[in-house]
């Protein structure tokens, strides 16, 4: 089995601060991590490889320092890291990112074997769009399984996979043909601690580094800022709510009276609740 996992290096949001004046994220000096959602996909990929044999290739697009994220993925046990880095990629939105990644995945397929599964994180913690995974699936014409809670069975021989997908109102059990694209739900597994041989291999591994041209991308207008129709018009910090807490009743009031006063107060402010409640009770 050849499995490709798409990861992203993101600023550690637990340690991020917003500039008090400009409202922009202060990225300087903030440590970077692998997008936490990607780790569930990576671990699932490693488990499938361990069960069925094959290779896991990890790919990321980003600045040269994103190599650290790939090296870390190798420490966990991935077999190969591919870094897509080029100034033409700067400023990519999800459309341009999925284009570049899809192109590189095709190239990886040509060089290292067609992928049976492409994994992506459910979403990133810095962009939160959840669009890049599905975008890649669409571009590569892969069947897509999003919000997967569990891979129940995989059969590379029959080219089939069965998963449990968390959906509104319940869990879907889905079976589909390979190749496909999967995004894993958080909490679906726990990332392993890489073995010493893996860690040693990762520390010395050669990371495959590709420019746009190396990835076989000819149409640069689809990359980076030029290929990104999304525009951030304005960034602002949410303003604090003006409403202040109000005191209801007096000290010494009976709890029952307090409750009555409170409900009166709520219904006066929000008459819609009263209307909805009377409508419900009349049913």
């Amino acid at each position, binding site marked *: 089995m050849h499995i490709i996992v798409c990861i992203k290096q993101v600023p550690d949001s637990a340690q991020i601060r917003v500039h008090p004046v400009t409202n922009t994220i202060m990225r300087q000096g903030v*440590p970077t991590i692998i997008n936490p959602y990607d780790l569930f996909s990576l671990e699932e990929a490693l488990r499938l490889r361990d069960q069925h044999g094959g290779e896991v290739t990890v790919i990321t697009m980003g600045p040269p320092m994103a190599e650290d994220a790939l090296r870390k993925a190798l*420490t966990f046990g991935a077999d190969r890291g591919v870094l897509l880095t080029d100034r033409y990629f700067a400023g990519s939105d999800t459309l341009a990112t999925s284009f570049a990644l899809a192109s590189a995945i095709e190239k990886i397929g040509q060089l290292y074997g067609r992928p049976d599964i492409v994994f992506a994180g459910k979403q990133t913690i810095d962009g939160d769009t959840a669009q890049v995974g599905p975008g890649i699936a669409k571009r590569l014409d892969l069947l897509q399984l999003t919000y997967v809670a569990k891979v129940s069975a995989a059969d590379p021989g029959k080219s089939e996979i069965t998963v449990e997908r968390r959906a509104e109102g319940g869990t879907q059990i889905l079976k589909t043909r390979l190749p496909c694209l999967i995004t894993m739900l958080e909490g679906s597994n726990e990332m392993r*601690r*890489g*073995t*010493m*041989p893996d*860690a*040693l291999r990762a*520390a*010395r591994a050669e990371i495959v580094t590709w420019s746009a041209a190396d990835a076989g991308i000819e149409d640069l207008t689809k990359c980076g800022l030029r290929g990104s129709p999304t525009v951030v018009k304005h960034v602002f910090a949410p303003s604090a709510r003006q409403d202040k807490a109000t005191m209801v009743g007096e000290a010494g009031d009976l709890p029952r009276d307090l409750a009555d006063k409170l409900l009166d107060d709520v219904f006066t402010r929000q008459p819609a609740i009263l209307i909805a409640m009377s409508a419900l009770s009349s049913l």
Partner: protein
Amino acid sequence: MIEEKFDAIVVGAGMSGNAAAYTLASRGLKVLQLERGEYAGSKNVQGAIMYASMLEKIIPDFREDAPLERHLVEQRFWMMDDTSHTGMHYRSDDFNEERPNRYTIIRAQFDKWFSRKVKQAGATVLCETTVTELIRNTEGRVIGVKVDRAGGAIFADVVVLAEGVNGLLGTRAGFRETPKAESVALAVKEMHFLPEEVIAQRFGLSGNEGCVIEAAGTFSQGMTGLAFLYTNRESISIGVGCLVSDYARTMESPYALLEQFKNHPSVRPLLKDTEVKEYAAHLIPEGGYKAIPQLYGDGWVVVGDAAQLNNAVHREGSNLAMTSGRIAAEAIFQVKSRRDPMTAENLRLYKTMLDESFVIKDLKKHKDMPALLHTNSQNFFMTYPQLMSAAAQNFVRVDGTPKIEKEKATLSSIVKARSRFGMVSDAVRLAFAWR
């Protein structure tokens, strides 16, 4: 199971570990460096001042790309009571030299840079990997390490223990005792963010010039301790350290002392409108020469804080760490070049070379100082600062009292507080310890 064998395994990626790994790798040895932190520097805490000439001996052109904050042109020593400080300031334009002598640094950044150099020199650096045990053969010789990862036994001719002040490996292996409470200080520090121009204005600096304040006095509540304030490019490092045994005795908390220092009327204006960026705590070896453990053995050497190599009197640590790391590496290289085994007998060369260096010579010179300051901490850190303040104030305050009476009053307050004999004995003992 890893079949591969290394020439040397370096445990730890602080100053001494990086110096050792860099020196070994750049001499062509096959080196594996193991660090428990997420990256080199992530766990490392220091004031921090870096001494250029010791790093020059390892990486001569470090100034080209090392992340340095400010070069120091001014040093202030303060004796403080609760409301005043009596200071000695030394500032010299001579320090605005082409190759400045001392720099403030931020360890998280500096160590990352140093680690990059180590990798470039050819060492394999593995972070997030804790060494749990030394592997020894039947003769007791150290032949490798075990780490907290599956399949984590790995072998080498020699293990360099650069594991820091607490050095659990060396202690567990019986190479040394756990550092005693009276020979380690616990220091806490904060980083305060401040714009470059405000720092320049507040401390009278221009360009990359830096200033250091080191202070002792009543804020330490009579404990053996020191406070510091270092200027970085866009931040101030401020901290207090006292002996662990003193904290235990007085039940004072390190943070309370730091707050006291920060709120001192001489310090508060320097910190006005700053934002605390981070805080950290660290143990510092203060036992001096007498606390140095066995430095080498069959298949191992110990360097830096793990070897308690810290000059508390001159507040130098990282340069001793770097130098011991470098010298250990040079000794190992010499033994290796002769194709001799890494036995205790051969590794003794490390100690011989270290004895010849400033590291041991300086520590030997001040070998009685830690004990003197410790047993007389109430006098040195409480009584004298108070007397000094009173004397200084008496000297500068003009109130119509005849000078002769003022001087008599000052003298008698000193004699009353410490007695003639006490003062003479303190002076004599101090002089002897310094000698």
